[in-house]
Each structure stands twice: as structure tokens, then as C-alpha cells.
């Protein structure tokens, strides 16, 4: 309960910080007659809206995962298609996709897409590079964010991604800016 309380406190802090940026820059943009400030305000607000959306999505997902989540139906999943679908809803400013020959995992497709979406949220709102491959009999999707990802338990997106991955007998590993989802190959 204490851990959950700390996590919740951290999430609220992040959401309200994004709200502070939106509110503050909105007022600056409206009151300052300066083109550079207005452009800066637009940029800051767009980023904060992305962070706010990510945060709300994570809270909703965590709530859903606190009920008994189902592993879904295991079937071959083309990770390239799963990545493409996950990228249709992301706050990343730019995603560089290198899908190569692709990889097929044995998992529930919907769960894989949601795991990838959680990992993309953990990657932030800047740029990221996404690739898929098979290595050592495991299908892997790798996301390299623009900045190192928080490793502690305060990162709700990572916690959600790990829980989702476990449903498909998969794992999530993080090293610096690199996030990797590993699943049984299909």
C-alpha cells in the first residue's frame, strides 16, 4: 500500500506539473505580445498535453490491470504490425521505425500492442527509434528513447508494461534509453 501510495503521489505530481506548464504558458501566450514567446508557449503546451495524455492513459491502464487481467489468446503475432498499430497512438514527436525482416511472437496480439504502447509512453514525448528482430529463439521489440528512462518503481508506464508482458510469458528490460520487450517466438 505504501508503494502504491508513493507511486500515486508521483503520478499526481507529474500530471499537475504538466497542467502547470499548460496553464502558465497559456497565460504567457495570451498576455505577451512577443512572437518568440508565443512560439515557445505553443511548443511547451503541445509537449505538456502529450505528457498529460500519457499519464492519464497509464493511470487507466494500471486501474484495469489491478482487476484480474486475462492473458488473452496465444497466437502468432507479427511484431512489425503490432509496432505499426502501437505507433498510431503515441505522444512521441517522431518515431524512426526500422522493422527489417520482422519477428513473429507467440502471444495475444492486443496485449502485445498495449505493452508496446506502454513502452512508447515510457520513452517520453521526444524522438525514439523502434526495431524488431528474433534473437536466441525470442522475438524482441526494441525502443531507444531520446533520453534515459527512469528505472525506479515510480515509473508507472514501465510497471504496466512489465505486468502486460508477463501475461504473454514475456519480459521488459530497460538499460539507459533502451527499452526491450522480449516474447516467445511464434
Amino acid at each position, binding site marked *: 500500500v505504501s508503494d502504491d501510495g508513493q507511486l500515486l*503521489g*508521483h503520478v*499526481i*505530481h*507529474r*500530471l*499537475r*506539473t504538466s*497542467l*502547470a*506548464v*499548460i*496553464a*502558465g*504558458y497559456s*497565460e*504567457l501566450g495570451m498576455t505577451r505580445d512577443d512572437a518568440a*514567446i508565443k512560439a*515557445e508557449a505553443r511548443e*511547451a503546451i503541445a*509537449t*505538456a498535453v502529450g505528457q498529460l495524455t500519457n499519464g492519464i492513459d497509464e493511470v487507466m491502464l494500471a486501474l484495469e490491470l489491478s482487476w484480474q487481467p486475462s492473458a488473452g489468446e496465444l497466437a502468432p503475432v507479427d511484431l512489425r504490425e503490432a509496432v505499426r498499430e502501437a505507433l498510431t497512438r503515441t505522444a512521441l514527436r517522431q518515431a524512426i521505425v526500422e522493422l527489417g525482416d520482422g519477428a513473429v511472437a507467440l502471444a495475444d496480439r492486443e496485449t502485445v500492442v498495449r505493452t508496446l504502447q506502454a513502452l512508447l509512453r515510457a520513452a517520453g514525448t521526444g524522438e525514439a527509434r523502434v526495431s524488431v528482430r528474433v534473437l536466441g529463439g525470442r522475438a524482441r521489440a526494441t525502443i531507444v528513447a531520446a533520453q534515459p528512462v*527512469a528505472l525506479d518503481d515510480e515509473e508507472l508506464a514501465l510497471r504496466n508494461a512489465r505486468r502486460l508482458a508477463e501475461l504473454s510469458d514475456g519480459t521488459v528490460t530497460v538499460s539507459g534509453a533502451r527499452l526491450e520487450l522480449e516474447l516467445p517466438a511464434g
Partner: protein
Amino acid sequence: MRRALLLVDDDPTVRRLLSLTLPIEDYEILESDGPDAVELARRGRPDLVFLDWRLPGARGEDVLRELKAERGELPVIVLTAEHAQRERETALALGADLFLTKPFSPLELIGAVERLLGTEPP
């Protein structure tokens, strides 16, 4: 005379927003993302500190304790995103002068600074 303000927040966008909100001609702005806050306060001798309570790598509580241990009279405004009573009590016990809860309005921010520095217009 320009007063020096130290802004301690791990989010550079929040620090930038704070510095844009304050009248630049009246204040010299020092910035810290947390870990070097105490050292910067030692060197920069600010007149007031804005301190984010949740800092990765350097808890706001620890920074406040050290700031007040070195300069008890230094006004510190704690920036929080929560209304948590326990955190408020902890910060007040350590000598925090004021709380601002995010999101805050520019007028609230400027008013707080003027009140603590005694620079309110007559």
C-alpha cells in the same frame, strides 16, 4: 537592486516558465535541477528559493533541511503538486515559508515573491 532567485526543479520547462513569469528586470535567475541546489545556493547567495518538493536524485526535504541549516533566514517557497497534509507539515517543520500548489497563476507567483522579499508595491 536586482534580487537573485534560485529555481530548483528537475523539469527545465517549469524552470523556464517560472523565469518567464517573473519580471526579468527585477530578478537575477539561478537554476538547478536538484542535486547541486545547495552548492548553488552557497555560491550564488540567492535572496529566495523556489523548491520543487519531488526531485529525482535529491529529495526536496533534504535540500530544504540543508538550505535552512546554512541560512535559516533564506525564504523558501515549496512547489508541490499535491495537497498532502503530511508533506506540508514536514516542510513547515523544516522552515518552509510558503507553499505553492501546481498549477499556480503568475499573479500568485509574483505576489508570493514580493511578499516574502518585502518588495510589494505601496
